[in-house]
């Protein structure tokens, strides 16, 4: 495989998954967001969202805080510096893919 094309397959698969990319995109544009907001914006089921949040948290891309707002449980998510850097790298990767495709075509 050509070296140029090999770098294209060198993608952060954790972010590349559309749901997790959407979650990170939301979190990179705010300081914090809770579970309810993320579920509404992503359209994911509660179970799916929980799984994706856990994966992102385990990778160190987001911080999850479980608190209570009165008697209502609240899960607040915040992107970490590692997460921000991974997101920016992914955006650069996307740009390079588009550039390579347009120059090779």
């Amino acid at each position, binding site marked *: 495989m050509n070296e140029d094309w090999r770098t294209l397959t060198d993608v952060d698969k954790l972010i590349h998954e559309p749901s997790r*990319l*959407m979650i990170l*995109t*939301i979190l*990179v*544009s*705010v*300081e*914090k*967001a*809770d*579970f*309810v*907001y*993320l*579920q*509404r*914006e992503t359209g994911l089921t*509660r*179970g799916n969202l*929980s799984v994706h949040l856990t994966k992102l948290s385990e990778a160190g891309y987001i911080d999850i805080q479980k608190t209570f*707002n009165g008697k*209502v*449980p*609240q*899960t*607040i998510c915040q992107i970490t510096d590692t997460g921000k850097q991974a997101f920016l790298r992914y*955006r650069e990767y*996307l*740009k390079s893919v*588009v550039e390579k495709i347009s120059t090779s075509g």
Partner: protein
Amino acid sequence: MNETIKTTIERTRQYWYIDGFSELLVGFIFVSLALISGLSVLFKPSIGSAILVGVGYPVIILGGVVFGNKWVRAMKEKVTYPRTGYVKYIQPASPSRRARIIKAFVIAFMVSIVTNVILSKLDPFWIVLGTGLLIAAFVVYMGVQIPLNRFYFLAGWIAVVSYAAARLPLADDVQMCILLAGIGLGWVAGGVVSLGTYLRNHPVENPEIEED
């Protein structure tokens, strides 16, 4: 994919305006300014009129910035966050609270001076029309930045009110009072419609309760 990222970021920015509370606040500020202007017309030509405008404008603008923002946040805590979720926006690195208050006061005072001294030397028709069109242009700018289409309708309304107020065969301070009231009512109407639509479309629920 880049387009999706852009859209997601825009939607997050638009979320602040989903409930109409910030529009209600802006509307309330404009209507209050109109009331102060109206009262100053009643007291004219006494010194009380000038004092009312000179002190009233900064106090309303400053109060709107400080207490109005607190009110918007409190309403969001009570109404919006339980329905559609909590978001804390990234705050630009800002100076201290005292510096912000002083800055807001200086801006409010400058607005008051510009309104009462510099603009008073122009033809009344252009003062009223120019003020309204400047505000309309700023609303268009906001509509582009957020982006939010309903701000374009609001800007259109402000432009119409500006022209209508400027054309009225009334004293210039009464025209300005009508202009401010018209702008304020436009914002309030936008806020009420947004809030009504929001409440209809988003009954209270908390998915996290079922999740746990």
